[in-house]
């Protein structure tokens, strides 16, 4: 057994708040490097794995999406509480991006538009089994402190790979040259 295999594995949790999942897709786009990643990290909670609860302590937490609902806010706070390093992944998490464009309208108008005006059978605003929308969509760092920002819509697989490698190596990534808003 080599030293690398004996090195403690980094625990990683990811969550998908108000986003399109494109950032998670971009993570999967690291292709064959996923094998290398799987040898270095334990993904303990994520839409990509089965685990249903966030462990009490996690090394790296990665949030995709903006904070748009009470459930998003709860998840963001829980991640901040339990993760040593919190990463804002992608433009929605970093600046609100497309989800935040509803901020230009009143929430009631948005709901009416989606569930009443464009519906011709049983127009009703869903309240059961879905989280309540917050009046204003905010980036993650407007709700809880964030350690690493990775802008991009989505950030490229190479940018995400670089960020993960730096975090695994115990360094603070500076992905500024690899990604940008909208990239």
């Amino acid at each position, binding site marked *: 057994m080599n030293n690398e295999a004996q090195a403690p594995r980094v625990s990683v949790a990811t969550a998908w708040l108000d986003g399109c999942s494109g950032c998670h897709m971009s993570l999967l786009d690291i292709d064959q490097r996923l094998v290398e990643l799987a040898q270095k990290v334990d993904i303990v909670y994520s839409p990509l794995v089965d685990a249903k609860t966030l462990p009490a302590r996690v090394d790296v937490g990665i949030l995709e999406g903006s904070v748009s609902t009470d459930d998003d806010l709860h998840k963001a706070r829980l991640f901040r509480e339990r993760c040593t390093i919190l990463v*804002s992944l992608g*433009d929605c998490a*970093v*600046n*609100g*991006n*497309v989800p*935040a*464009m509803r*901020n*230009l309208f009143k929430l009631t108008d948005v709901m009416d538009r989606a569930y009443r005006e464009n519906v011709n059978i049983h127009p009703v605003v869903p309240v059961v089994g879905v989280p309540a929308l917050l009046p*204003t969509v905010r*980036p993650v*760092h*407007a709700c809880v402190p*964030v350690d690493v*920002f*990775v*802008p991009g*819509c989505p950030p490229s697989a190479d940018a995400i790979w670089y960020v993960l490698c730096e975090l695994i190596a115990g360094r603070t990534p500076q*992905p*500024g*040259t690899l990604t*940008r*808003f*909208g*990239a």
Partner: protein
Amino acid sequence: MALPTTPPGARVVTLEIDGRDLSARDNESIIEVCRENGIAIPSLCYLDGLSVWGACRLCMVEINGQERLYSACSTRVAEGMKVSTGNERLARYRRTIVELLLAERNHVCSVCVSNGHCELQTLAQRCGVDHVRVPYRQARYAVDSSHPSFRLDHNRCVLCSRCVRVCDEIEGAHTWDVMGRGADCLVISDLNRPWGESETCTGCGKCVQVCPTGALVKQGTSVGEMVKDRHFLPILARRRDAR
């Protein structure tokens, strides 16, 4: 703001920029000398070929022995001047300026027609703006699509006034002006009439070409406008069959 004119036959001065000894004509601005010598200074309102405006404050530099900062676009070089174009303090100011611009109006790069061709987007990356620390204003501005060829989206405007200057100084039409103060400040065509009704606009599109962001764009460049027109097909096919 035009720099005071100097008599022909400018003198040559020597100065130091970022520790490099350089020579320049004494009628040149600091930013001109920097660009000639490959020294990068960020700017938005400055554009070679237009008069100097000095509004964006991104090109602020330090001059040795002076307490306050100077805008490199509107400050002439002088003999013995020692200029610093980049340090921690300047980087902090520039980053803050770009963050305030991003927070002021709607700059959602991912859905902008200028994504990948925007100077504000590039500046944000260059200045290390990986997030905006101030709250977004979430203000809604108008979009003027009345012109047959071009569109003005105030949401993307950074008020650099390049459009105003190119229209006045190069095209000679002076269709554009600036109206209002603070957050209400807008570029306007004629006396705040819809662009499509402008009697002075020549439709040359110079304003669109100098705009650093997606505020002034050609019509037909947004995703929703990419509509195919296949009316010709049944008409031509029928005529061919009839022959």
